[in-house]
């Protein structure tokens, strides 16, 4: 799949077309860090090729929360609120990304409010989906007796995988 298709997958065709020449390109080698947990980053990234692992620090070393594949948005929370990255992101292979700086959003809103709204909606959809998955796991952990057996099993598997990693 070419870069245009990946961008369209992540941003929708109209927005991808408009932003295409305004995006910067980033190349990472396997093991390179894209974002560091706790450090602010003004960039919204789209993975074009390769992949990025999402890590948090656990009591026994880094814990892997997920893998972001081509067509995924990355760094959306910091792009929206300007706050620090919620996780560390590390390339799992030679990886190419496209990125848009936070400051570009204000210009987009002034000149093309519809496209700005579409971008924000895409980002919200991504955050809502990731929020749903994470909330369930956290809730079941905090109150295990209240969680169903299926939820507890899924959570144990999740946390086991997280904490067992590395």
């Amino acid at each position, binding site marked *: 799949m070419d870069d245009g298709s990946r961008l369209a997958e992540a941003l929708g065709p109209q927005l991808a077309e408009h932003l295409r020449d305004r995006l910067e390109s980033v190349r990472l080698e396997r093991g390179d860090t894209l974002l560091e947990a706790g450090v602010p980053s003004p960039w919204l990234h789209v993975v074009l090729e390769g992949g990025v692992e999402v890590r*948090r620090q656990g*009591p026994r070393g880094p*814990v892997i929360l997920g893998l972001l594949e081509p067509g995924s948005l990355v760094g959306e*929370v910091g792009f929206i609120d300007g706050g620090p990255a*919620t996780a560390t992101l590390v390339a799992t292979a030679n990886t190419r990304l496209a990125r848009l700086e936070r400051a570009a959003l204000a210009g987009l809103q002034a000149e093309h409010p519809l496209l700005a709204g579409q971008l924000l909606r895409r980002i*919200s959809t991504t*955050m809502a989906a990731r929020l749903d998955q994470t909330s369930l796991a956290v*809730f079941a952990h*905090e109150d295990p007796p209240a969680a*169903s057996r299926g939820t507890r099993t899924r959570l144990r598997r999740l946390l086991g995988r997280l904490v067992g990693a590395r």
Partner: protein
Amino acid sequence: MIQGHLRRFPRFDGLSDDEIRVLEREMVARPYRPGQTLMRQGDRARGSSASMFLVLEGAVELWVAPKDGPAAKVRVLGPGELIGVIALIRDVRRTATAKIRRKALVATLDRLTLDRLQVDHPGAWARLQQTIAQQLAADFRAVHRRLSDALHET
């Protein structure tokens, strides 16, 4: 009534007078008593019944229940915060129950109106999308803090 509140909330900073007037016209504010419910987890949020809520005054509790388990209070939201945006964005059932904690004034905006704003007032619509994204970012950070605690307890 809504205008004065919107101007005070940091998330609505930078809205033009026109945009504020549009939101004033399209949002419906009503008072609620403690114990009343804005939405219930599992309810369908389709068509015009799908609304998001903006707390203008008071406080609202969010309760989440896992499948087959009792609900637990996960957050208390106050003035300037949005509730119920996930179902509006993803077309899924409500993911939490929202109960009034303290006497509250809450404004609602339904999906049909939001979609109409996109066509009639794209500027105001884009600003609302930004407010929704900021609420989700705040929710995301709250959940991640709890995930972090969970990881360090395991």
